[in-house]
């Protein structure tokens, strides 16, 4: 009997994919550029997907409207950054960060607050009814997207990177865009905080336990509803943060971006195993890498490669790489 029992095989998938891609791409520097880009994209996707998968694991609620919070965060960021032109226009990185940080914070706050309303008005009345859940949250997505159009207009809005985050740094021959490094750092930070919360705090303990057996957590005297609302709000806020990152990554935002990113997120959490945060990280990194490699090798089939990836993983493990117990 081993004390720590970690399933390493899925963890190996990420380096495996990266190594497999190397000979196909040929050039080492291009590979490095693509790999960093893929990891950065993966981290952003993870930020968004983590909340969704936790909400699903905890309450068996799959929020098809998760994408709304992505778009919402991104649009809030355009407004905040737009109002702080002096700071984003500066060449100095610290001034840029001063602008980006409140943009992220406000985006998270707004997305979290809307998440609270979303949970109360749309999700709560349809617990345990999957069909209605899908329909209602989809309806929420439609309404949310339209409201974003009402507030910010239906057109694409540029979200330029602050001066100091533009351009690339050279690592050997490989050009690494600065923002991708920022995304990596933010992603790792979120992952770190999330992991710490889940593994070291009582709240995290409750969440992990709730994912496994909701009824028993209630029998131990904890109000799982409150916990769930908290997770839903945090998940929405994280989607908002991810939206800011995604918008800056694409350097523009459109109201439909939520629905677009949603597709990637679903692939990610299916690969990871519905409800598993660790699985979501692996899924996100795989999808990010795959998108960048195939985008370079065969751009026409980029999105299809993710479907193929998902199918391959499901053939290997039909419940995703880290199946969550009792689901």
């Amino acid at each position, binding site marked *: 009997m081993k004390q720590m029992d970690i399933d390493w095989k899925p963890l190996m998938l990420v380096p495996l994919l990266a190594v497999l891609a190397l000979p196909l791409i040929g050039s080492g520097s291009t590979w490095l550029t693509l790999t960093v880009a893929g990891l950065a994209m993966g981290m952003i996707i993870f930020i968004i997907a983590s909340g969704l998968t936790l909400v699903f694991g905890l309450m068996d609620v*799959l929020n098809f409207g998760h994408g709304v919070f992505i778009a919402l965060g991104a649009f809030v960021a355009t407004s905040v950054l737009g109002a702080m032109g002096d700071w984003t226009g500066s060449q100095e990185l610290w001034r840029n960060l001063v602008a980006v940080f409140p943009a992220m914070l406000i985006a998270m706050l707004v997305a979290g607050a809307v998440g609270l309303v979303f949970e109360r008005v749309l999700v709560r009345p349809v617990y345990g009814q999957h069909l209605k859940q899908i329909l209602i949250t989809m*309806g929420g997505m*439609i309404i949310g997207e339209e409201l974003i159009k009402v507030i910010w207009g239906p057109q694409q809005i540029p979200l330029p990177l602050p001066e100091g985050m533009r351009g690339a740094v050279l690592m050997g021959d490989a050009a690494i865009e600065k923002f991708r490094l920022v995304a990596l750092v933010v992603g790792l930070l979120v992952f770190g905080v999330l992991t710490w919360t889940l593994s070291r705090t009582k709240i995290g303990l409750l969440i992990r336990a709730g994912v496994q057996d909701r009824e028993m957590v209630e029998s131990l005297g904890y109000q799982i509803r409150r916990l769930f609302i908290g997770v839903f709000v945090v998940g929405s806020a994280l989607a908002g943060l991810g939206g800011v990152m995604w918008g800056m990554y694409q350097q523009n935002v459109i109201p439909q971006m939520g629905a*677009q990113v949603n597709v990637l997120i679903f692939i990610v959490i299916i690969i990871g195993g519905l409800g598993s945060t660790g699985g979501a990280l692996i899924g996100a990194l795989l999808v990010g890498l795959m998108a960048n490699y195939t985008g370079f090798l065969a751009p026409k089939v980029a999105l299809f490669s993710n*479907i193929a990836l998902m199918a391959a993983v499901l053939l290997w493990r039909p419940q995703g790489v880290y199946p969550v117990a009792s689901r």
Partner: protein
Amino acid sequence: MFKRLLSNDLPRDRTLAVLLIALLIALAFAPFIFPGVKALGIAAKVLVFLVLVASFDLLLGYTGIVSFAHTMFFGIGAYGIAIACTRLGATWGAVAVGFFGALALSFVLALIVGLFSLRVRAIFFAMITLAVASAFQTLASQLSDFTGGDDGLNFKLPELLSAGLSFSEEPFLGVALNGRLLCYYVLFFTALASLLALLRIVNSPFGRVLQAIRENEFRAEAIGYRVVVYRTVSSVLSALFATLAGVMLAFWLRYSGPDTSLSFEIMIDVLLIVVIGGMGTIYGAAIGAALFVVAQGYLQDLLKLGSDATAGLPWLSALLSPDRWLLWLGVLFVLSVYYFPSGVVGRLREMARDPQSKH
């Protein structure tokens, strides 16, 4: 005879029956009642959506699973005809190749997706179809040599169905008897036949089993029905009818592009129509499709009035802008799911049933 035609599934409400008959008459004589290109176009679109939405109802309303890949099959039908007629010329042979090729592709795809994802849980199916449909859409716009990319394909149909062909010099009741008119009636009878066929399916023993599964999956499985098989067959059937609707669309438009058949917006429209019209009723698809398409054509004008009238209040005006009509449909959709899960049709039937249940 009439009852048998409807597979004993009668409207069961006078208002609903009147509406359906009115709709049938309006569609049957649309070229004569509503002359003009726009009106006929709207009537044809109603026919196409009727089949598309009714086939989706088989899946959502009767089988209780949500697919977001329905427009993928719709698109396969439309592109099948478009690609065949572009490559092979405007012949009946090309139409046949496109039609059967599209059906075969839909069949295989629906089967794979179904077997892959229906064995786990319905929620899986919804997610996977969403991903597959979106990938398919990207693929269609990427393979531009084949599909015309974002511009789509304009193509010609055999002469028999084109406006250039006249059957008689004299207009009949003021309507030119040409290939376009014939094309409309091809659509009309296809839609009618499809609707009757779907009614037959949902009222057959197979349809009853589907509903039993929808109500209680475990019990159905315990009685001995292979739930996966039934669901997969249902999703394949539904995909085939969607493909047929795509073929109808291509016939009418002589054009196939991502925005007219593959886009997620159409998927959303279908979802809205089926829920607002009434899930699990088939008739709801007919009523819903007609209401929706006509509203899409004309209600936006109404919203424009509201928007203009409230121009002094920019916020309200923006909310009432005709471009935002999806917002109001979305609200209606959510309210429908909460309060009228059986939609317009279910509502009408309840009102018809209530007085009887009192005695």
